[in-house]
């Protein structure tokens, strides 16, 4: 078969039918008869081209796979099963000194891909680097110092009780080799030849494609099974065509009409799984005296038809949330017992009654709803909310603005109503903190860093502090349950639907992907280190 590029001259001389044939044959044909396992083609993030950066301390400029596939974390936390974690580079951890000291016991026999052994020095170096360079400390860990106790034991000291930051410390920090990084300025180092402990190593890089091959000395024997990963640069447009033409094996993209574009009548092969990764809520600005009235929020809550929003605006890709805002299924242990079976139901009559009882004059019930216009699904949801609220006599004007403008306005609190997603962490505490902690909010006019609706409640703050002050899982769950109760009863925000984590995977080459039945990790290729967990679980198809 002739690859299409050789037909170039033919194409230019307009011998069209010949080219057409070559073009048709241009689609991927993975197995060329040999027995070696085929490469996996992955779309992780939208990119027109890549810059060469594999430094796990960096945020957005870093290429996907750096953390997880190359630089591993100490533990793994499954966000779909809050409370579930797995030892990884560390076999165990122990808190002491009121949660200000954390000691890790490290896995033995792990080697960096350049052959040097992985030791406690590397872990200490990684956290020391974050202490010395606050701009690399993206979780704002209050690191006071590190101590190497033994080649396989390391102690990290914190300035404050840090139980609640275990995920950020152990589950979200890629460990770097001291012997490579100590010779560099970690802030500007781009780590072009990464040396990691992970299942894959970088084998080639160009602006349009990078490839990773399996680490033959990986510490999990016999893994990974997939020998090569290919990461071609796909823009948001190109990924749609890529999925349509079957070039991509694993993608994390929003696809407008997924059955037509991607599934194409082959639901057994072209699968997708969109588990919740966050909570999308309607934010009522609580500095607005009318929206500050609980009855008004109750009325709005009763009038909004979430089922319709999910079906129409979200194309059925997600579900209405549990009213407590806890991730479901998976978060059962964190649900407030008295509201375990709570569900959203529309009740226009009661909503009208509540508004009447609130004593607010009907002509004051008029708000603008600010949405970022590039998020077309939210714009549609806003229209539906406008129609729903019109039924109870609340006038809503939807206003679409540019993304940057929306971020700025919501941050500063200059809105009546807006829609915003709050990401879930490994337990519901993370989203509750971001939604409810009064420390995160700011007076209107100053950029807040969370709690954009400006909820100030002593009880919420106390419960959040309670969670952070203990490592006992039962106590943490109780604190979250009570926070969930506040969410259901006092409506600091009005949850609308779960924001889905996009994942499309084709089972033609490999099987063993996360699914509704076995949600062992987020299935999206853009989530670290979950993507590494997924790749380690894959098996060749047909075995």
């Amino acid at each position, binding site marked *: 078969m002739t*690859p*299409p*590029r*050789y*037909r*170039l*001259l033919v*194409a*230019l001389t307009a011998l*069209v039918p010949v*080219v*057409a044939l070559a*073009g*048709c044959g241009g689609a991927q044909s993975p197995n060329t008869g040999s027995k070696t396992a085929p490469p996996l083609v992955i779309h992780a993030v939208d990119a*027109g*081209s890549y*810059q*060469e950066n594999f*430094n796990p301390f*960096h*945020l*957005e*400029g870093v290429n996907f796979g750096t953390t997880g596939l190359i630089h591993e974390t100490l533990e793994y936390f499954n966000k779909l099963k809050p409370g579930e974690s797995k030892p990884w580079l560390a076999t165990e951890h122990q808190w002491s000194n009121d949660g200000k000291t954390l000691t890790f016991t490290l896995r033995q026999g792990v080697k960096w891909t350049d052959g040097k052994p992985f030791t406690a020095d590397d872990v200490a170096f990684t956290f020391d680097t974050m202490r010395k*360079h*606050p*701009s*690399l400390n*993206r*979780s*704002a860990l209050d690191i006071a110092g590190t101590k190497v106790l033994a080649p396989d034991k390391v102690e990290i000291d914190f300035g404050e009780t840090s139980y609640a930051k275990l995920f*950020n410390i152990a589950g*979200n920090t890629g460990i770097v080799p001291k012997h490579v990084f100590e010779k560099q300025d970690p802030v*500007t*180092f*781009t780590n072009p030849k990464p040396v990691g402990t992970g299942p894959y190593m970088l084998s080639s890089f*160009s*602006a*349009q494609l990078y490839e990773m091959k399996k680490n033959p000395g990986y510490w999990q024997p016999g893994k990974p099974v997939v020998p090569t990963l290919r990461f*071609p*640069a*796909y*823009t948001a*447009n*190109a990924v749609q*065509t890529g999925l349509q033409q079957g070039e991509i094996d694993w993608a994390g993209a929003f696809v407008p009409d997924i059955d037509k574009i991607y599934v194409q009548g082959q639901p057994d092969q072209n699968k997708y799984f969109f588990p919740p*990764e*966050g909570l999308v809520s309607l934010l009522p600005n609580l500095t607005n005296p009318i929206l500050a009235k609980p009855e008004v929020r109750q009325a709005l809550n009763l009038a909004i038809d979430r089922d319709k929003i999910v079906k129409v605006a979200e194309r059925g890709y997600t579900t209405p949330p549990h009213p407590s805002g806890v991730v479901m299924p998976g978060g059962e242990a964190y649900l407030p017992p008295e509201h375990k079976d709570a569900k959203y139901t529309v009740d226009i009559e009661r909503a009208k009654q509540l508004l009447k009882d609130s004593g607010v004059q009907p002509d004051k019930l008029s708000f603008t709803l600010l949405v970022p216009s590039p998020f077309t699904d939210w714009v549609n949801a806003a229209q539906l909310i406008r129609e729903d609220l019109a039924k109870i006599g609340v006038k809503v004007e939807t206003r679409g603005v540019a*993304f*940057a*403008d929306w*971020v*700025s*306005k919501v941050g500063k609190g200059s809105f009546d109503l807006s829609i915003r*997603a*709050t990401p879930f*962490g490994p337990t519901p505490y993370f989203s509750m903190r*971001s939604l409810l902690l009064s420390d*995160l909010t700011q007076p209107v006019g100053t950029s807040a*860093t*969370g709690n954009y609706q400006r909820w100030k409640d002593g009880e919420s703050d106390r419960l959040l502090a309670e969670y952070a002050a203990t490592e006992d899982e039962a106590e943490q769950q109780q604190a979250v349950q009570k926070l969930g109760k506040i969410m259901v009863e006092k409506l600091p925000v009005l949850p609308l639907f779960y924001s889905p984590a996009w994942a499309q995977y084709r089972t033609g080459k490999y099987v063993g992907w996360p699914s509704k039945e076995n949600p062992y990790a987020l299935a999206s290729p853009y989530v670290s280190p979950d993507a590494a967990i997924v790749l380690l679980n894959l098996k060749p198809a047909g075995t």
Partner: protein
Amino acid sequence: MRFLARRLGFYLLTAWAAVTLNFLIPRMMPGDPVDLLVARLKGNVDPAAIEAMKQAFGISDANLWVQYVDYLGNLFNGELGRSITFFPTEVTTIITGALPWTVGLVGVATLISYLLGTLLGVLAAWKRGSWLDGVLPVSTFMHAVPYFWVALALVFVFGVTLRWFPVSRAYGLDVVPAWDGPFVSSVLYHAALPAITIVIASMADRILGMRNVMVTTLGEDYVVMAEAKGLTSRRVMWAYAARNAILPNITSFALSLGFVVGGSVLTEIVFSYPGIGSMLLKAVENEDFPLMQGIFLVISLAVLVANFLADLAYVVLDPRTRQEA
């Protein structure tokens, strides 16, 4: 010479104005690059780390004047800073990575469109009343249709449905960038469809412009005179009419050459082409000041240089500009 010196002074002043605007415009956008970064990273950054990150990115709250002086100083040293989106990659690295693709694609396409368009325009004016008149309604139509519509239609027909051409990227994934046959032909193959869309969409302007000026010129006395002398019609058409009619077209050609550097944002988006246009879009979306400034700088300098070259060409082509002093 005085003419040129005056022009040069004018260009220096314009360059300063452009550089200053490059500095001001990104800063007038609402919002803040780090807040946007935090919003995009969906909870992967603790808000408490924002201040330290701002420092690392070189975003200061210092007053604009201090920032402006710093900016000019860095510019003179050729320092464009590091991109925020692609931190810590330097802006110059990003621009040098993207620029060749844009110059190659849009530059060549602009040249082809100019040559073809001018030729068709001259012929359409010369052979009025022949079948070539059919070019006019077609050009008017193409002139009116938005570019992205043409591009998307071609992508749909030739890329997605017929699969004659690839619809994204600058080269195939099966080749490694190098100066060899497979790579070069892959680049050409991938550039074909975007180039064709640019040519089709921009040629109409040239045809119409050239034809209209040419028709006016054909009514001039010296053309009648040339015909009366019994010169060959080929000679009259090219040496008498077209040579005079082409002056306005040179200006517009020079201008469009300047804009080549800015890339055709729409082309690059539709075809996922890794040029300056897509980078600029990304920079604007992310309020990446350093990257935006760098790209604007390159674009404005290119436009100025192209204009200067057009001035020079005028001096050569039009004797009147030389006599003026």
